[in-house]
C-alpha cells in the first residue's frame, strides 16, 4: 500500500522516483480533498522542511479532513488538539500519573499527551491561553517535551498544523510574533469555487466517503526530507531571497517590523522543497517568488497607515518582489490573485483595526 524504497535502503532510488512519488501522492490526496491544491502542496513542503504550518481560514473548509488525509497518506500517527481557553499545558504534553501495580506498589508513570504524534492538529490555537501555547512552542522548536524533570523526545517526523479562525477573535489570545516566527508557512484557505463545491457535494453526500489507498511510508518520507536539503540553489537566488527578507526591514513606508533571519532560512528551504516536489533538481526564481508569500505574510507587521489604507501583507510582499526585479509569469499571477482576494476580502489582521 505504501511507497517503500527501504529494501534498497538507497536514497538515490528515492530521488530517482521522487517525481513519481509526489505525483501519485497528490493524486491520492485529491481523491479525498477537493481543490486546495496550493494548501496541500504547502503543507507537504513544510513537512519536507521539518517545520510547521499555521492555517487561517473560516470554519468548514476541510482543514481537519485535509490534515488527517495527509497523515493517513504518510502512514503517520495523527492527533488532534481542540484548543480552548481552559486547556492546560499538561493536556498537550502529558502528565505523570500514579499507577498501582500488582502487589499494591504504586509508581509514577508518564502518560504521553496528544503532542506525542507525528502530525498534530492544534485547532484554533489562538483560543488557548499563552501558557498552553508556550507548551506547544517547546515541542515545535526543540522536538521534545519537558514534564517535571524529565525530557521526552518526540518521534520523527514531527509536524504541527495550527489553525486560526479569523472571524471569532473575541476572547482569543493572538499568537505573539515570537511564536508566529516558528511557523514556516502561513496558509490562507479560501472558499471553494462553484465547481469544486459541487464536487464536494457529490462526494460527501453519498453513503461511502472516498478513501485513500496508497501513500508514502515513514522511511521514504525521512529520505525525502534529507533530499530536500540537498537540492542545489545558485548564489544569485540566495542573494535574491536575502534581498527580499532584508527589504521587509528597510521598507519603513509600509512595514513596521520586518522578518528575521529565520525567514531567510525558511524561504530557501521552502523553495528547495517546492523544487523537489515539482521534479526539478535546482531551485528557480519562481520557487523563491512563490514561497515568499506563505513564508513572509505572518512575519511582517504593517504600519498603521498601511493598514488604514487597506494594504494587506500579501500586497506589501508583491511590492517588495517588484522592487527586487521580479519576473512575473502567468501561473504566479493566477496564484497571486487567488491569494490576494481572500487576503483582501475575508481576513483581517488579528488584533488591530477590526
Amino acid at each position: 500500500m505504501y511507497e517503500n524504497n527501504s529494501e534498497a535502503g538507497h536514497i538515490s532510488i528515492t530521488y530517482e522516483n521522487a517525481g513519481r512519488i509526489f505525483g501519485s501522492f497528490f493524486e491520492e490526496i485529491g481523491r479525498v480533498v477537493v481543490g486546495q491544491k496550493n494548501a496541500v502542496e504547502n503543507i507537504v513542503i513544510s513537512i519536507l522542511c521539518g517545520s510547521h504550518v499555521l492555517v487561517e481560514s473560516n470554519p468548514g473548509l476541510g482543514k481537519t479532513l485535509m490534515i488527517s488525509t495527509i497523515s493517513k497518506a504518510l502512514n503517520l500517527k495523527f492527533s488532534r488538539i481542540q484548543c480552548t481557553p481552559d486547556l492546560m499545558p499538561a493536556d498537550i504534553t502529558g502528565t505523570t500519573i500514579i499507577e498501582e501495580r500488582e502487589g499494591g506498589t504504586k509508581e509514577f508513570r508518564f502518560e504521553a499527551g496528544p503532542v506525542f504524534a507525528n502530525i498534530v492538529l492544534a485547532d484554533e490555537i489562538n483560543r488557548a491561553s499563552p501558557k498552553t501555547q508556550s507548551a506547544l512552542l517547546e515541542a515545535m522548536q526543540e522536538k521534545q517535551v519537558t514534564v517535571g524533570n524529565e525530557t521526552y523526545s518526540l518521534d520523527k517526523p514531527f509536524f504541527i498544523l495550527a489553525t486560526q479562525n479569523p472571524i471569532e477573535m473575541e476572547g482569543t489570545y493572538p499568537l505573539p510574533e515570537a511564536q508566529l516566527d516558528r511557523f514556516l508557512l502561513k496558509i490562507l484557505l479560501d472558499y471553494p469555487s462553484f465547481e469544486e463545491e459541487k464536487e464536494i457535494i457529490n462526494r460527501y453526500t453519498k453513503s461511502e466517503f472516498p478513501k485513500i489507498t496508497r501513500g508514502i511510508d515513514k522511511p521514504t518520507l525521512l529520505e525525502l526530507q534529507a533530499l530536500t536539503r540537498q537540492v542545489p540553489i545558485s548564489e544569485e537566488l540566495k542573494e535574491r531571497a536575502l534581498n527580499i527578507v532584508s527589504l521587509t526591514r528597510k521598507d519603513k513606508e509600509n512595514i513596521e517590523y520586518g522578518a528575521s533571519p529565520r525567514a531567510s532560512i525558511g524561504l530557501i528551504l521552502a523553495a528547495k522543497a517546492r523544487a523537489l516536489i515539482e521534479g526539478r533538481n535546482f531551485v528557480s526564481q519562481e520557487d523563491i517568488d512563490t514561497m515568499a508569500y506563505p513564508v513572509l505574510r505572518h512575519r511582517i507587521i504593517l504600519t498603521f497607515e498601511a493598514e488604514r489604507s487597506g494594504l494587506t501583507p500579501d500586497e506589501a510582499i508583491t511590492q517588495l518582489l517588484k522592487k527586487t526585479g521580479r519576473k512575473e509569469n502567468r501561473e504566479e499571477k493566477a496564484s497571486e490573485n487567488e491569494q490576494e482576494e481572500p487576503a483582501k476580502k475575508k481576513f483581517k489582521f488579528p488584533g488591530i483595526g477590526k
Partner: protein
Amino acid sequence: MFFTLYMIFALFNMQDIFSIIDFFEPYTGSKYSFLGAELLFETLGIILVELGLALAITAFRYTRKEKKDAIKIIEEKFPTLNERLRTAYDNRAVDNIIVKDLLNKVTLDIKPVTSSALLDRRLLIIGIGALFLTASGSTYIAITGYHTDMTPKNLPEAIENIPFISDKDSGLLTLEESEAGKNGEEASGSSLEKITVITIEGTEVELKIPPGAGQGITIKEEGDERENTFGQSAAYDPEAIASQAYYENLPEGYRNIIQNYFEELAKE
C-alpha cells in the same frame, strides 16, 4: 586605435612637435635604420608615441569596461540551460546525489555550446568595419603623404580662432560713461574711436588723442618739459627709400610724376 591615432597625427603633421621640444630638437632630421628601411627620427618617434598612446587608451578602456557574465550570455542564448547552468556552476564543489544529477545533465546539454556563442556579433562586425576603415585611411595617408597645413606650431593660433575661447571682441578698454555725463559732456562711444582726455567744467574742450598714441593721459603744465632721450633721425632723401614694389626701370612718364609729387610735398 593605433591606425586612428596614425591618421590624426599624420593629418596634422604632429611629427613636427619634436622640432619644438628642445630636448628632441637636436635629433630632428637624423635617420635611423629600422628593419632595412631608413626612417627619420620624427617618424620613428611619432610611431612610438602612437603605439604608447594606443596601448594606454586600450588598457584604460579595458579596465573601465563592464565585465560580462559568460553564464548569463549562454543561458540567454540557450534557454534549456536557464538557471541550471548557474546553479550547477555555483554548486560544482558540492557532493550529493542531486547535484551530481544536475551536473551530469548540464554537461550533456552544454555540448552544443561553442565559444563563438559568447561573441557579440554586432560589436564584432562594427569593430572589423572600423578597423578596415582606419587601416585603409592610414594606408592611403602613408602612401600619398596627404596632410593638412596645420602643424603643432599653429596650435596656439588655432585655439585662438576657436569661438568662445579667444578674447578679441571682449573690449578691454572701457570708460565709465557716467563720468562724462556728470560734466555735461556727451559720453564717448567706443574706446577705439575718440577718447576724451581732458574736461573743464563749463567749457567744451576738443582735445582727443587717436588710439594707439601710446602716451596715455597726461596734463602738460607750464615749464614742464618732457625729457627727450631720443635722437632725432636724419632727414632722408625720399628718392632713396626702398619700396616693396621697387622697379629699377620705371615705365615712361612715371618718373616725372613721382618727382613732381615730392617737389610739391617739399614746398608745403
